């Protein structure tokens, strides 16, 4: 188990491109989980500002991780919207435990309270978050493996 390391911060696109590289570099972790088809946007709010990132998953790869503009999250299958503190707490938990535990899993964070909400224009798009949940969780658990400078 690692000690908590907050030097990996969630409020930069570089964090997500590093996660994508981590996924794409380890197909052996994703192959047993099966192929994925989902485009998810993340909204990470801090004060009046927000970082918006789009993640495109195809097969067993994250093909795209890039910043998007205000409102573009609605064009994704679904989006996760939360305060930077909630996002950072998730990453800190992952880095402390090697994977998200307890209420810090993606599903749990979107189920209790308003820390991170799962949203989308189409209920079927939102349901993709559930259809591919283990792969998405494994993707975020990759934060435990990133160097502290990510």
């Amino acid at each position, binding site marked *: 188990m690692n000690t908590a390391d907050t030097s990996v911060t969630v409020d930069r696109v570089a964090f997500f491109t590093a996660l994508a590289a981590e996924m794409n570099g380890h197909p052996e972790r994703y192959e047993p989980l099966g*192929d994925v088809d989902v485009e998810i946007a993340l909204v990470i709010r801090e004060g009046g500002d927000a970082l918006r990132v789009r993640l495109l998953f195809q097969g067993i790869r994250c093909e795209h991780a890039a910043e998007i503009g205000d409102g573009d999250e609605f064009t994704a299958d679904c989006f996760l919207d939360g305060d930077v503190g909630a996002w950072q707490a998730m990453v800190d938990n992952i880095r402390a435990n090697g994977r998200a535990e307890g209420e810090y*899993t993606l*599903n749990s964070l979107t189920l209790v309270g308003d820390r991170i909400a799962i949203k989308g224009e189409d*209920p079927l798009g939102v349901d*993709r978050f559930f259809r591919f*949940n283990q792969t998405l*969780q494994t993707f975020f658990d990759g934060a435990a493996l990133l160097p502290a400078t990510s």
Partner: protein
Amino acid sequence: MVTMQPAYDGLPATDLVGQPLDWAWLRGARSEWGVRPKPGPRGLTMMDIAVGSYGDVAEHPAHRSMAPRGADVDPGTPDMGYILNAKSDVWADNVRELYEEAVARQWSATRDIPWGELPDLGDDLEHAICQLCTTLSEVEMIAADLPAKWMWRMNHDFLEAKMFLCTQIMDEARHTEVFRKRALANGGGLLKSRAGDESLLRTILQAKTYVQASALMHLLGEGFILDIFRQGELIAPSEVEKRMFRMAMQDEARHVAYGTLHLRYAIEHDADTAEEIHEALDHGEEVLVAFGTNQDLSTAIAVLLAGGVEHVEDKGFPMQAEMTRKLLASYLARCERAGLSRLSRTKLDLDLLGIDRDTGVIRS
């Protein structure tokens, strides 16, 4: 596309014992000879081979046999007794994609759950997880029994829908397996099963039509269970249950996705179907509420949400109420997506639940 093929002259007219031979399959059966689907990066999918006439699914197929759709079917092929002969009876526009997804994302309850990480739990938590698993083990197989009841009545031209339902049956077998295994794995075991639980199952199984059955099972029942799995993942005492509920959640969400677009397809092609579905859901919602609030399931979940019996009242029950609101809001949104607004029709007490009756959104 019918293409001319070589005549293959000179082939024998009888076999070695004098039986006449028919070389029609070689000499120009009506087919799309020469059509060559191209595999994609993942291999050759059902979407890839839905090309030319092979991809066309008739609204009302000409045959009622098990002949493969697109084959040169003998006019004398017998009627297999199918009763679901309209595409709108079973089809969903996402069914090929869902089949491929289901096949790609199969998992093993034996191998893919980290059973070795199961920790000793407090007696109350172990009882609660065992009760939850007992109930889930009881209800999961309904989603296998029901498609099995109807599949042999579905016209074989809708083979992709039947293939997807086969994956659902396998999924539900695995769910029954994994929850039974968890109930037994930590020294707890199977706990209470009550007569009331069977009412929901009987309502689903005895639906008069497949579209009603699908509404009750895919949209209402599996939508409900999907959210129970989400709650299970949240309250999981260890990575064993986390993984178990997450994997089951993925399967369940596929079934819900099929049901949502199947009902939409059915309603778009026959508006009268909507009332048939509404009637089923009027009764189904009533039975589901009785099931969801049964004393075993609801209190077991509340204890798990509270982290034990000590805080069941001040933490467990309030959290459960919040999740029930989210569960019903998700269900109502899926109904809208299916083209079936329940907001003005449902007998669910939306005001009490804090759900806006005009929008279906949870009031803040």
